């Protein structure tokens, strides 16, 4: 197996995630796109870990998974709060801080 095929798979998933973050209005879908981005990072970490023959990448991949879980918890709590206050989860309606 080539190293590059894993890295390019990670790059493709990363770019699809970036597209989702830019294009989506629904806050839950933006969080899902962020999960895609974090997963592509994990694939890269594990590919380099196998290439270098070390286990450091595994440790960091586990830490990334834990951070992602925490991020989803807080993010969905914020989405719930937003829905409770304005009955919508559209990110384009959060414009109070615009000058």
């Amino acid at each position, binding site marked *: 197996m080539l190293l590059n095929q894993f890295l390019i798979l990670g790059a493709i998933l990363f770019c699809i995630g970036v597209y989702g973050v830019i294009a989506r209005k629904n806050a839950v*879908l933006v969080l899902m796109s962020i999960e895609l981005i974090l997963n592509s990072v994990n694939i890269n970490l594990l590919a380099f870990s196998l290439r270098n023959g070390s286990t450091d990448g595994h440790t960091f991949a586990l830490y990334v998974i834990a951070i992602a879980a925490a991020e989803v918890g807080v993010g969905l709590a914020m989405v719930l709060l937003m829905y409770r206050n304005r009955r919508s*989860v559209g990110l384009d309606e959060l414009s109070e801080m615009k000058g």
Partner: protein
Amino acid sequence: MIAADLLVAQNVGFYLIAAIMVFGAFRVVTTNNVVHAALWLVVVLAGAAAQYVLLAAEFVAITQVLVYIGAVMVLFLFGTMLTRAKIGTDSELNNKNWFMGIPVSVLLLATLVIALNDGFGDEQLPTDAAVTTTQQVSDQIFGPYLLPFWALSFVLLAATIGAIVLARRD
């Protein structure tokens, strides 16, 4: 030494799973139904777990299945069902200027692919690597990476308390 047909099988498995993952990821960002997006995300996450097995990272693969497919997806489905009155197709999921995402992501992908091809070319992964055992991973976590582990514990604690404080009704 690993036989050549096993390498062929690994490559076939890789490209099959990669195609499913890319298609699933594409559906996550293009579908008009939030629940369908969550279910396509399950496909992508399961494919990622399979790729981790190909990369000789069994513990991370199992953690991926437990944490992502088990816990995070349940959170996503709860979030979807608590925030959307109607479950079904919805034409208002995208921004007005959603098409601006296409050039950004295509340019980013082109840059990344060129840089990766330039940097790593046709470098082979080692074929005789031993599977990383759980003991090795735990020796790393509770050895040289203990301080980030503690920091991560505090992050999780803060996130739990923050989520409860944000979401409770008072």
